[in-house]
């Protein structure tokens, strides 16, 4: 069992054990469903580095691509239903998408001489990252009065990360080829999947019996392995998401 999943289960056990005591008076009916729709913001940095080899002029060169993965907007939908008293089971989907400006630095072998690499560097724009996470959550709900509702949730998350990644690049050079300059990157859509975890909470205010608004905080995480250009690269996914939006209950 992986450590994140262990953490998830511990959080769940604590949450579920506490729920009956805290929310005993809520009188939630089993089978009642709910939907949470959030527009949010994923904070935190998941910058990562890709080190690759470059075969050129009968010699190996290397280059490193630094991907700048910063905070960005996310979208989240969660649906669930109470299964026993204050306990609900839910399934949520989170999508996080943003551009990942990157920089490349490396060395290109000389066409005429061994061991005389030429440094190159350049910025790469237009690379995109998309994270799609499916969260399976145990949810403890706690109605506070008729309009306010609090939730705590946690569970495993299945992450799928699509990342534009650099496989090689072109460079400009002219005789006598002692210098080279970065031209453009060759990019592929790479992806990978991995099981992680999520924990979080939600506060909702209902205007009516069925419709309300609310805010959520969720922390989810996984380290996804992405295979590209013959190499495997670890990419962190998830993060702390905060958002708010529509709340529906049936």
């Amino acid at each position: 069992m992986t450590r994140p999943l262990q953490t998830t289960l511990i959080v769940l056990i604590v949450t579920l054990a506490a729920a009956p005591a805290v929310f005993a008076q809520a009188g939630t009916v089993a089978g009642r469903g709910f939907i949470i729709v959030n527009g949010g913001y994923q904070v935190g940095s998941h910058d990562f580095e890709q080190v690759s080899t470059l075969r050129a002029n009968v010699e190996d060169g290397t280059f490193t691509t630094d991907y700048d993965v910063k905070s960005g907007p996310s979208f989240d939908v969660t649906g669930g239903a109470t299964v026993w008293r204050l306990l609900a089971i839910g399934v949520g989907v989170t999508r996080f998408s943003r551009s990942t400006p990157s920089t490349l630095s490396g060395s290109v072998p000389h066409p005429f001489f061994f061991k005389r690499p030429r440094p190159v560097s350049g910025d790469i724009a237009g690379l995109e990252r998309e994270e799609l996470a499916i969260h399976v959550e145990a949810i403890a709900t706690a109605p506070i009065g008729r309009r306010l509702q609090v939730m705590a949730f946690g569970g495993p998350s299945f992450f799928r990360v699509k990342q534009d990644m650099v496989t090689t690049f072109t460079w400009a050079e002219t005789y006598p080829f002692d210098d080279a300059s970065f031209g453009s990157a060759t990019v592929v859509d790479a992806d990978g999947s991995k099981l992680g975890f999520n924990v979080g909470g939600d506060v909702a205010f209902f205007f009516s019996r069925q419709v309300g608004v609310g805010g959520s905080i969720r922390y989810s995480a996984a380290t996804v392995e992405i295979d590209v250009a013959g190499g495997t690269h670890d990419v962190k996914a998830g993060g702390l998401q905060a958002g708010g939006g529509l709340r529906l209950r049936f």
Partner: protein
Amino acid sequence: MSLPIASLRVLLCCLLVASSALMAQAPTAPVGRRSIDVYATNTTELRTWDRTIDQMVRANQLLVVDSRPDPDIEGRRHESLVQYYQGIPVFGGGLSRQAAQGVAVSIIGTVFEGISIDPAPTLSADQVVRALSDETSGARLAGDAPSLLIFPTLDGGYRLAYRATMTDAKTYIVDATSGGVLWTIDEIKTQGQVGVGTGALGDSKKMSTTSAAGGFRTQDQLRPAPIRTFDTRGSDATLNRILQPPGVAVDADYSVDADNTWVDPPVVDTHVHAGWVEDYFYKQVGWTAIDNRRGTITAAVHSNLVNNAFFAPPPFGPEGRGMFVFGRTVANVPLTTLDIVAHEMMHGVTHASLMQRTGLGLLDALFIDRLGPTTITSGSTSLPCDTTVYVLPDGRRLPLVCQGGRYVLVSNHPGVIHEGVSDIFGIAAEFFHQQAGAGPLRADYKLGEDVTDFGPNRAADVPASLTALPSSAGLIAYPDHISRAFSFLMGVSQGTVANPTAVVLLPWTVQGNQLVTLPTTDGGGVHVNSTVLSHAFYLAIEGGRNATSGITVQGVGAANRAQVEKSFFRAVNLILPNVPSLQTLAQATVVASIDLYGVNSQTTLSIRQAMQAVGLVN
């Protein structure tokens, strides 16, 4: 016409051939004739020569054949002028004038005076070609039709002559009246005494090749001037087809390899080193390849050439562009080390730059070095110049050339310059690409040292450490000073002692009053005397004391070697006239350094000291 005389020196222009060839030479008695060698650098001389040049240009006696901006100095221009007489160029007559903002700053060259000759030839060009073909066992005309020129002779006179290059790789100067051969120029510039290294040294290096059917071939298309290395596979017929005008090369002449992993050392070293030398010229002295016009560089390996390598200028080689041929030692070690490839390529550069500036290359010519005694001895035998004869293998007896009863000793200064600067840039290319040090694949001042069991052939740092030639007086070392340079006696091969019509260089020299016999004339000492120049190059960089003159030179230091290299290159590339003496080259190099670095710069001081140390500058 009366001309200002910057310096007077006896100049003997005549044909140089290997002694074994014994070609007919320039006619008539070497009583000495006066040409004017010009080294004008001070204001008075410059103004005088400026006026003279302008007068001669207006009189169509000098023609500006090239004018180009200085590649290194803003506002400078270089004019190359060729001397003409009634519309016909004068062999060896020409000046190089440098101007800064339109004002002359140096004028160097040679002008002949007293020309009076009928410019109408008796013989046609076709008649001359047919006669040459008969004399050369069927050689054909190579390149352009024969052209007329005025040829200065030994007796101070001038002959109207044709200049024709034949397929035997020789250019002939033929009397346009009598049809006699006045002079022959061997167009093959050889690296005769230098062996070349090989990939057998185990060094791994990159090859610039071209994908072709069945694999890859030795065609470098990455560099400004493409390089192609042909493999003659030991076939003389193949080499001749490629070399002889009109040189024809086919795809099958390339060396090929299926997987682009080359294991044939002569091919690898030739192809790679040619590229490295092109790189050196481009980066260090701003010259692109051989002709500075991106002309294709062609080299051939696996010929049957033994202990030699050579450059054949246009019109030889494919498309008439010239080519390089690299041989091997008797032990089958290829003569393709970096310094030797660079040496041959510098021959090409020297030829191309002189051709572009003046329409002619660096022309071989004999200069009188000194007059010997009237009588010399061989053992106990006394040999007066007037009565001594040289007996040829066929029994012919050649009287010796005398002047006032004294032996005349000559050498081929332009040929020495050709070889000397090639050695210099062979060394320079090594230092550019290799780490300094001793042993294989290290840069030093030796030539051909990386050729297993063959080199070094010459040593610019300590010339006398190597034997130049064996002789009847024992082994003779390479000279480190002009006073130790080889000079040769001449025999009268046609005509009489009083009125020789042709002379031949003899493998004889004089030490004191002793006759010394040599195994070769070396084309007038072109290789054996080249160390005078290369030693000056060494001293200018590294400094030190010349063992003969005792003069100590303060060198610029290894870190500044590029400045010395650029000065030598500039002298050859922009200043040198067609028929220069060694002293002219020395002056031109000093002038080049002044141009680039200033009169009081350490570079100029070091070069001047070095030239003084070897006896070329007072």
